């Protein structure tokens, strides 16, 4: 799966930590959208609805064979093609095959994380097919040869001056840092691409099996353009991105737009279930739906992780996560950033490879709290850490850190009796003496050294509470007992 940098999570995170502009940009998104979503969960949307939506998602996952069969039959009945891709390679090869069969020269893309997941752009470009991102943020990223940093605000890490200089160079317009002027320049440039493309590639937010539609949500209209104007439309869909009925679609759409942008509804919600029908003035002549496994089957089969497939990719977890709030999207170095990325990337792409993503959170639970479908990401991070601690055959995981494993063995040895514990405390008390000043430990050794780089640490007390109980409290509190 495609990556943008050779650097580690730690390196990328530390680079981001020094970027005050990035920090304030993400802070603004979190302040506006994250807080907005939380407010809507308290006012417009009941916990009951969220529970019901989660139940519907899980029921669909438990019956995914049936639901996908229904979706497929309906779309085929309307003349659409449905292809099942086991791997990312299968999926992108299928896209290429469709493009080549239709002699496609230019592909326009509606924002799709699945397309980044399967890495379709490079393959098409290698076959001399021009690929144009049409979401404004994604277009800016493409022009800058950069990578998206947020699920719904891909270029949040760039400021308008950077974008102004980019447009001056790449679009040949006079320098401007006025967002409406810049947007208008992109509108004009992209309109030409959108109206002359032969093929559109989109993702799929939620497919509805009972009616046989995929549905797509956008504010800009680029997704409608990409799926309406070219003669071929290929929609990429993770196999879990389906729900059973319209009634469920109603619930989940309301959760999706509120989770994504604290909006009651996005400007456009498009339902598409096949190619142009006879007599219709427009629409694609060919419609292809690519239903992608690429590792999801394994998540589905594992009761610890089936739940993660209920995610509706709204990105609300990014809009509240205090870690994401400081390190931004690039540190995750993956198509899916933020808390959801920290769980799915290891499962997609190797738990050891993404060990930092599994371990680099504070498990504060804000993501679980805001998730419209109550996804328990902290629980799953904890499961991933468990795999990393001792290894896991099913997921081909090796123990991540022998030193740490040993340290926890030692830790338990110290916690296994009060005598051992007391000995550890006494040793610490002696060892810390040279480093304590003004009642605080200013410089620690071992793992504590990392803590004390930026923070003081309280020293071990002269007496533990256990000792104080024995010497002070118990004698004073008559009638109370020790055990």
């Amino acid at each position: 799966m495609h990556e943008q940098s050779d650097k580690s999570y730690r390196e990328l995170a530390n680079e981001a930590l020094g970027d005050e502009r990035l920090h304030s940009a993400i802070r603004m998104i979190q302040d506006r959208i994250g807080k907005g979503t939380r407010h809507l969960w308290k006012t417009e949307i009941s916990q009951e609805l969220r529970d019901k939506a989660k139940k519907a998602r899980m029921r669909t996952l438990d019956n995914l064979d049936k639901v996908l069969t229904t979706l497929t039959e309906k779309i085929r009945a309307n003349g659409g093609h449905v292809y099942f891709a086991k791997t990312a390679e299968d999926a992108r090869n299928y896209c290429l095959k469709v493009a080549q069969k239709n002699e496609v020269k230019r592909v326009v893309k509606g924002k799709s994380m699945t397309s980044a997941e399967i890495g379709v752009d490079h393959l098409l470009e290698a076959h001399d097919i021009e690929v144009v991102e049409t979401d404004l943020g994604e277009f800016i990223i493409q022009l800058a040869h950069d990578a998206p940093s947020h699920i719904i605000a891909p270029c949040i890490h760039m400021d308008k001056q950077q974008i102004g200089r980019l447009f001056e160079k790449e679009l040949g317009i006079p320098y401007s840092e006025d967002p409406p002027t810049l947007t208008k320049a992109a509108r004009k440039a992209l309109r030409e691409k959108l109206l002359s493309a032969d093929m559109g590639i989109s993702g799929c937010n939620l497919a509805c099996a009972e009616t046989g539609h995929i549905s797509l949500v956008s504010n800009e209209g680029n997704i409608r353009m990409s799926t309406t104007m070219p003669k071929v439309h290929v929609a990429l869909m993770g196999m879990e991105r389906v729900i059973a009925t319209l009634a469920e679609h109603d619930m989940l759409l309301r959760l999706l737009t509120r989770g994504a942008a604290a909006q009651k509804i996005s400007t456009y919600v498009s339902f598409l279930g096949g190619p142009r029908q006879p007599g219709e003035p427009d629409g694609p002549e060919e419609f292809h739906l690519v239903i992608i496994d690429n590792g999801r089957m394994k998540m589905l089969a594992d009761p610890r992780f089936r739940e993660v497939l209920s995610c509706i990719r709204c990105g609300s977890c990014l809009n509240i996560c205090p870690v994401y709030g400081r390190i931004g999207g690039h540190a995750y170095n993956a198509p899916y950033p933020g808390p959801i990325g920290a769980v799915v990337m290891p499962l997609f792409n190797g738990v050891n490879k993404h060990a930092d993503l599994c371990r680099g959170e504070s498990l504060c639970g804000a993501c679980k709290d805001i998730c419209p479908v109550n996804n328990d990401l902290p629980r799953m991070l904890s499961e991933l850490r468990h795999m990393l601690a001792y290894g896991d055959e099913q997921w081909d995981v090796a123990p991540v850190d022998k030193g740490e494993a040993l340290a926890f063995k030692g830790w338990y040895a110290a916690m296994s009796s009060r005598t051992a514990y007391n000995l550890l405390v006494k040793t610490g008390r002696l060892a810390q003496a040279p480093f304590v000043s003004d009642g605080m430990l200013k410089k620690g050794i071992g793992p504590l050294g990392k803590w004390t780089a930026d923070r003081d640490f309280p020293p071990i007390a002269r007496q533990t509470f256990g000792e104080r109980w024995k010497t002070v409290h118990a004698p004073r509190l008559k009638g109370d007992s020790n055990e």
Partner: protein
Amino acid sequence: MTKHTATLFIQCLVDSLKPEIGDAMVHVLDTLGVSMVYPENQTCCGQPAFNSGYRREATKAARRFIDIFENHNAIVCPSGSCVHMVRHHYLDLFRDEPAMLARARKVAANTYEFTEYLVDVLGVTDPGSQLNSRFDGSVTYHDSCHLSRGLGIRSQPRLLLENIPGLSLIEMDESDRCCGFGGTFSVKYPEISTAMVDDKIQTILATGADAVAGCDVSCLMNIEGRLSRIDSPVRALHIAEILANTGK
């Protein structure tokens, strides 16, 4: 008031680093006429190992904890995250061991966070008259993650703080945003953790309060450690210390 007995579950950081919080808790419970039991062989509930993925070690600690505490009725702890560990994660650890699971459920049901015990069990509503508490100054309250989101305890500490004579409670923005402690996270990824505590401190300082109060020593230790390093006069206090303060 009927005679209550509380079994003290003093989490390891309080025990070794901040025993004065345990002292304060003893003072408060004693003032309320609660008799106390302290199992002297207690060490740690296993949370650090669990959060880092070392469930074998965490399970051993949990088993030990259950052995020690299972016959006690009101197990009271001055730390939300330890209570969360016992109440929720023990059930994860023993999900495939029915006999242990039953024992874990019993202990979980009997374990209380300190403010929860004061308000929900003992019915404390007015620390001024019931505990002679007095605190002259303004305080802002930090909702620690496992306490507020994990256990749903938000109103109890506020009720207590609001009713301490002399104390003015000033809410900070996003009081339930993580302070960046996260157990071993803070030593594994110290730079991220420090950046997070800086965000937290910014919201604390914006209130102009004299002190930040909380119910979890680990978060307070993190916040205090950074406040101390930047030479801020703002103090980080456990709620037990504030309740035990009589202004004398």
